[in-house]
């Protein structure tokens, strides 16, 4: 469907969000300490930060939490479903995250449907904002995963100073907007011009280009030897930060917790970069050597993801660049990959 386009004056933003909050938990970007921004429940709508840096924490956790109780088993043979069905609206999401979710949908919902993800996904409305000022770490522009999107969003806002250019791209978004249609008006020519202005400037400032396709081709050509992965991984702290922060990483493990006669099953984030991730019975560690794990992470994102889900396992959000203590992130590694492969012809 072609997105419906509207204008919302910033003066009316809080009214709109307040109405949405009556039915849903409103999550928005709020100030943490110093320059930190965190996504949390909005108590006071005026605390929502609109002047945002490009790189915000991922909203993956609202659909696939780090610690998620799944069900409870009682000794009476009763099973209690612990699925979260909270209705949420998340304001201020980044385009890269929205793109990532369309891929996560394929991962979690194509074929076997993961009920936990499905429930949360169905109950969540995303209001994304076009990035006007990309940070040096982001490279979504070259990947068409941001800073603005043509499709895939529920509601996409472009900041035009005193007003937002609103695009509605899904039935969920439609309902969130249309029920309050009195707050919105049709865009005029000037609005389109302003929107185009923002579009151009954000395009102009998104300068970092990392070619995932180029990296994929290099790897497939066989020019990238294991020595490269050894060199890349030698500083890895095995912290899992790159995986935890990546909107497209989905490793998890489950564990059972026994509270007297109640057993609770919990799903937890995991990371393929931990050597215990592939631990086999008898203490065998097929990926004990660190480089094998690093290599697999990049292979997953650059080779297996496109093969299986028809899209790269990276949307260029730059979060791994920030999370990784030793800069073994997607952008840096691809840059080094090209240098290394180039120098070896």
């Amino acid at each position, binding site marked *: 469907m072609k997105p419906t386009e509207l204008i919302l004056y910033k003066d009316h933003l809080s009214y709109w969000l307040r109405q949405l909050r009556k039915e849903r938990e409103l999550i928005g970007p709020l100030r*943490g*300490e110093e320059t930190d921004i965190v996504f949390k429940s909005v108590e006071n709508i005026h605390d929502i930060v609109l002047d945002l840096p490009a790189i915000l924490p991922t909203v993956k*956790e609202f659909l696939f939490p780090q*610690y998620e109780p799944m069900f409870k088993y009682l000794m009476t043979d009763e099973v209690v479903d612990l699925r979260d069905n909270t209705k949420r609206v998340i304001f201020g999401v980044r385009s890269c995250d929205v793109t990532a979710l369309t891929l996560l949908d394929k991962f979690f919902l194509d074929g076997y449907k993961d009920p936990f993800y499905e429930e949360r996904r169905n109950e969540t409305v995303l209001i994304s904002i076009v990035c006007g000022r990309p940070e040096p770490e982001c490279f979504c522009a070259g990947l068409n995963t941001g800073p603005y999107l043509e499709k895939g969003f529920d509601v996409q806002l472009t900041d035009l100073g005193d007003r937002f250019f609103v695009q509605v791209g899904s039935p969920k978004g439609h309902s969130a907007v249309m029920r309050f249609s009195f707050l919105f008006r049709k865009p005029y020519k000037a609005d389109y011009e302003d929107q185009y202005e923002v579009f151009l400037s954000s395009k102009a400032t998104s300068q970092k280009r990392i070619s995932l396709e180029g990296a994929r081709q290099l790897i497939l050509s066989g020019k990238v030897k294991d020595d490269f992965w050894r060199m890349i991984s030698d500083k890895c702290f095995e912290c899992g930060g790159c995986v935890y922060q990546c909107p497209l990483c989905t490793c998890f493990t489950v564990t059972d917790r026994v*509270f007297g006669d109640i057993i609770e099953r919990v799903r937890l984030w995991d990371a393929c970069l931990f050597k215990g991730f592939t631990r086999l019975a008898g203490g065998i560690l097929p990926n004990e050597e660190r480089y094998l794990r690093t290599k697999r992470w990049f292979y997953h994102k650059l080779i297996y993801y496109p093969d299986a889900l028809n899209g790269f396992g990276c949307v260029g959000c730059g979060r791994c660049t*920030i999370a990784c203590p030793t800069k073994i992130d997607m952008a840096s590694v691809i840059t080094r990959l090209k240098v290394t492969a180039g120098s070896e012809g």
Partner: protein
Amino acid sequence: MDKILTVCPYCGCGCGLYLHVENGSISGVSPSRSHPVNRGSLCIKGWNAHEFVTHPERLRYPLIREDSYLRKVGWDEALGFISSRLKKIKKIHGPDSISIISSAKCTNEENYLMMKFARAVIGTNNIDHCARLCHSSTVGGLATTFGSGAMTNSISEIADAKTLFVIGSNTIEQHPMVAMYIFEAIEKGATLIVADPRKIRLAEFSHIHLRHRCGTDTALLMGIMNSIVAEGLVDIDFVKKRTENFDSFRKILKRYTPDVVEGITGIHADDIRKVARLYAMEKRSMLFYSMGITQHITGVDNVKACANLVMLTGHIGLPSSGLNPLRGQNNVQGACDMGALPDVYSGYQFVKDPIVRRKFKRIWGVNLPEKSGLTMMEMVEKAYKGELKAMYIMGENPLLSNPYSDYTREALQRLELLVVQDIFLNETAQYADVILPAASFAEKDGTFTNTERRIQLIRKATAPVGESKPDWEIICELSSMMGYEMNYRGTYEIMEEVALLTPIYGGILHHRLNTGLGLQWPCPSTDHPGTPYLHRKKFARGLGTFMPVDFIPPDEPPNDEFPMILTTGRIYSRYHTTTMCGRTTVLEREEPEPFIEVNPSDAEKLKIKNRDSVKVTSKRGSIRLNAYITTTVPEGTVFIPFHYSVAPANALTNPALDPEVKIPELKVCAVKVEPL
């Protein structure tokens, strides 16, 4: 969904992190991006700091031992029991028959109250905590040389250093965020020198790796200083203006020529000279050390040698230039600062100083004991001998962390009263008469002080599990029950009292910490911005003192019966006695089983293959575990991480003590390894 900014409960880096709270329980963790230490990163432990909080095995009710079983009781009964037993023991045997072990895992406020409880309520200076086993050498050694035993610089300054000298610290695994800045410095062209008998991960990135024999650190450092003097690389101006006692130090130093030192340490004389030049010739040189320096019978001497080295070269008192003991536990710096030590009150004010005592007496309103108390190992010894009757342990697990576990176990069993206050039923609690359930870091307010002296607020994210309570509340209730009113409305009131009595914390008040990301002591007044690096124009004690030190070999060299050297330490995915990590799915899975590192040529001699099980025996005990064959350890040396209760390395270690601060020699003892 709420996000509560707090501090990682694991190591002394003190990373800032948000706890994510959904429907009253913690659903995740994320790093603070603007935090001056971790800048948006965390290590594996920080990322998984949430899971143990709601673990089913958390202690949820007070328990009293009845024969062989633990009876669930109410708080009144538990505290009433403790109070009457303590009062009785105090009356019959005197206050010094009671001892307290405080905790480097607890907040500053709790440590302050615990030391107040010991001194004002019980009337004894018998209070200590696990710093005895890690950095007591630092506290002692640097107090005499500089007047202040803490990291002199801030962690972020590392990025701008030119030479980094790391001795006895497995930095990547134990202080990952410090290692992050070391990497940044290397990237910018800094030189890294690593001195460690083991080929630790950081050594792979060093420009020079000195693998000296275990326990020869003093000699190595003396050799380096000898060649600094010989090559005229001394900062004469600094030595003249800012230090004293150089001449008597120099007399001893003369004996440690690189050739002599080569004989002791096994390090080539040329390498010693090379390191001397690399370290001395650059202005922004930072020296880092940790357990490899401190856990020896010569721990204090080793520390003094480090201090001498930085004074000799004037590498101190400037940004990116100083001496940096890396403190282990999240709040071991704070527990020391708060005076959870037998000889000092908060802020390292000596109990034997009558003026200081008078000050504390005025505020606390009771007479205070004059004599220094017992250190951790002395408490164990006295308990063994039957002279110590009661021990109150808050948030520590000495059975697994002290050397010579059999002896510690026996000592604990001989006590008339053992109280353990913890979040889990740890190994030590299995011998307790009363067990009190404490709240975890996520369930209370307070402050932690990280290794760079940064005092940071921790904030309550969820309600304590079951009936557990924050340690400070428990102490207050017990104290009041024993007739000494402790009445605080919150931890901020406790900190106010700390500030009143403690010059280095004089300006530390919770409302100041509530915005921003902490303040670094010394912070003497409420308008003081904190101190990023120490000893700028003068040392805390005025002049720095050169302390003459001499090499003394380890207490227990290998012999015919026990031909190998055992050294112990930690691994990345585990923390100390693993009460928390062991209950965290992915951390537990990384290294679920104990192991011993054996060099391939030793393995060949012993006829063992990788993962074979072996028996390791010292004079004091014996354990069984699997061999991990690796060149990380040099020939003749084996390494065992001390985390595992099924094969506790400390069943083997030597309780021989440094004469000054009584730190045991956990880093060297003699063992034999036999295939099974």
